């Protein structure tokens, strides 16, 4: 058992195997994002490392407020003023963190795409659908003629099931599901190599949700697009993602092959999250006691220890290492590495301490 800092050539089960050999489209290393707040800096993303390969979908799951959306926006350089980014995001030989605002702007669209959660308000109400496409295509591809723009836009829309007759319509003339498909067409018309989809179906009904997930699945099959799918719907991850990264309080606590992680969750937070999922076979509702920590003052040691049913003494003292488990998943927890802790450290955390931490 090794810590997973160096190179690893561990073979993985499932569909991820062949993809491991291709170079990642985008590789984040120790990515950190802070927001300035009145209570001090808030580390919304705190040292996150992941790779996404061509045609691969990485699911990013976790509770609200754990930094998923910040991570997605941070990668594209779309953070509000007052946010700071550090670390490395390797994309096409460049570190996106070091690029100027202008360089990032030129990459967004043709290289990096973002699909939003709320489609109803994401289209400019005064612009026709056609004007949105013309603007995007002209910005990144100045020498296209009007006819070429029209052809490409209509192709992209047709791929999303929007008929050409609606090209000159205004956004308010479409339903939510149609608007989300227009947003996707708009993000994909420039064929970005890497797309972040930030809860793309949360605001939509289940039938439309299935449709959108199908579209995203077709996308990576047809264009080899690398996709980060942010969601808190574990069902979507199981269905649509190759790999999954579970985030808690700015950290990725477990990541690996989606089927492996779901079949055999190793991190106590992943286990708790899975238990809390409601399905047809659910007989009782489970929840994780307490709430995610205040990121301006995160707890010492493992950030999950105040809510962790398996917390040990060491968890409250020292941050756990990231380890590569035999099943190919990476896990940030003291439980699988007993030989790295002392016998005293392995003693269960006192119950009082849990409740005190809970109060805080």
């Amino acid at each position, binding site marked *: 058992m090794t810590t997973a800092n160096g190179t690893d050539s561990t073979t993985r089960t499932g569909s991820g195997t062949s993809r491991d050999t291709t170079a990642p489209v985008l590789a984040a290393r120790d990515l950190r994002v802070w927001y300035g707040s009145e209570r001090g800096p808030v580390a919304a993303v705190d040292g996150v490392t992941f790779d996404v390969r061509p045609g691969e979908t990485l699911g990013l799951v976790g509770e609200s407020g754990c930094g998923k959306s910040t991570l997605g926006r941070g990668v594209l350089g779309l953070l509000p003023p007052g946010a700071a980014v550090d670390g490395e995001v390797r994309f096409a030989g460049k570190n996106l963190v070091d690029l100027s605002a202008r360089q990032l702007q030129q990459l*967004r669209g043709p290289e990096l795409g973002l699909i939003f959660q709320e489609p109803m308000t994401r289209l400019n109400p005064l612009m026709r659908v056609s004007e949105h496409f013309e603007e995007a295509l002209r910005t990144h591809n100045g020498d296209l003629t009007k006819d070429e723009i029209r052809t490409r836009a209509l192709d992209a829309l047709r791929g999303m099931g929007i008929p050409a007759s609606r090209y000159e319509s205004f956004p308010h003339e479409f339903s939510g599901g149609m608007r989300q498909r227009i947003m996707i067409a708009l993000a994909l018309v420039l064929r970005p190599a890497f797309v972040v989809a930030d809860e793309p179906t949360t605001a939509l009904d289940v039938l439309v949700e299935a449709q959108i997930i199908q579209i995203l699945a077709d996308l990576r099959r047809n264009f080899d697009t690398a996709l980060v799918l942010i969601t808190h719907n574990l069902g979507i991850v199981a269905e649509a993602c190759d790999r999954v990264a579970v985030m808690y309080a700015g950290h990725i606590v477990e990541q690996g092959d989606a089927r492996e992680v779901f079949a055999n969750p190793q991190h106590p937070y992943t286990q708790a999250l899975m238990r809390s999922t409601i399905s047809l076979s659910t007989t009782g509702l489970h929840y994780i006691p307490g709430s995610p920590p205040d990121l301006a003052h995160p707890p010492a040691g493992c950030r999950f220890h105040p809510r962790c049913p398996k917390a040990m003494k060491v968890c409250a003292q020292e941050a756990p290492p990231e380890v590569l488990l035999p099943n190919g998943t990476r896990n940030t927890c003291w439980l699988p590495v007993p030989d790295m802790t002392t016998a005293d450290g392995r003693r269960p955390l006192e119950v009082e301490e849990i409740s005190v931490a809970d109060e805080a």
Partner: protein
Amino acid sequence: MSMKSGSLGRYIAMRVALAIPMIFVLLTLVFVMLRVAPGDPISASSGGAKMSQEKIDELRAAAGYDRPLIVQYGDYLADVVRFDFGTSVSTNQQVSDVILEKGGATVTLATGGLVFALLLGIPVGLLAGRFRDSAFDVFARLFGIITYAAPVFVVGLLAQQLFATKLGWFPLEGETDPLIANDIPATTHILILDAIWVNDWEVVWNVLWHLILPAATLGLLIVGVFIRMVRVNLIQTLRGDYVEAARARGIRERDVVVKHGFRNALVPVITVIGLQVALLLGGSVLTEKTFNWPGLGKQLIEFLNSRDYVAVQGLVTFIALVVVVISMLIDIINALIDPRVRY
């Protein structure tokens, strides 16, 4: 497309229908307010000369003031429907003739004031919103509050003192130099348009030159509203979802601000213009008085001073109708620009 124009037609029809009860309420208010105003119009219009009670009664009967209020009210409504605004007791002129004769100057002044307010307010508001919390933004907000709060006659007198008396850049008062425009035929009754009509550019420039100070004075009254409105709209728009989405598509920041920010931030300005028309006409009464501008406002004050309530009622009725009609037109223009309004 045919469906779309159909719903626009329906919108206009509905908006016009809504204006009718609004006009009715306005007319009623004007009528009631002028009945409860102090002073007897008949004895006041005699200019203080002592009249016998029989003479007063005779004049009251001639003016119809001796009839029951409800009958007077019915007559008033019937007259307004026929665009008959009554006859002045003090000058014996038809109020509609007064409107025709003096209205053009007020239209010129109000338009000038509105143009000044828009030319100053929109760029200042956009810049203040774009560079929020900068020194310019703080200055612009302060400027907007002060100009809104400052009384028209104070601003007007200061402007006259500085730019007319002291610096001599602009004329002190009036719409033109004396006598210069006497031979311009009244085609539209708007002097500047009539002068353009007969190609008398000397008069056109003379009117514009006279217009600048009063238009700026009147414009400053409403410019603060535009500055604050545009600024807040732009700040909200730039924080909006579709602006973030445009950035996510890699649209140039300049285009994001101009195409997605400015355009959307300016839509409500058209509505605000409609709301400001009342303030603009009210302000023009004071501005006309200050700058001796020969418009309806100055005339209204003269009628008020001579207690000519019939003429006052006629003029106020007319101004109220203008406000209703303009706000209706503004709503329709809004519907043409912003497709969402129609639904």
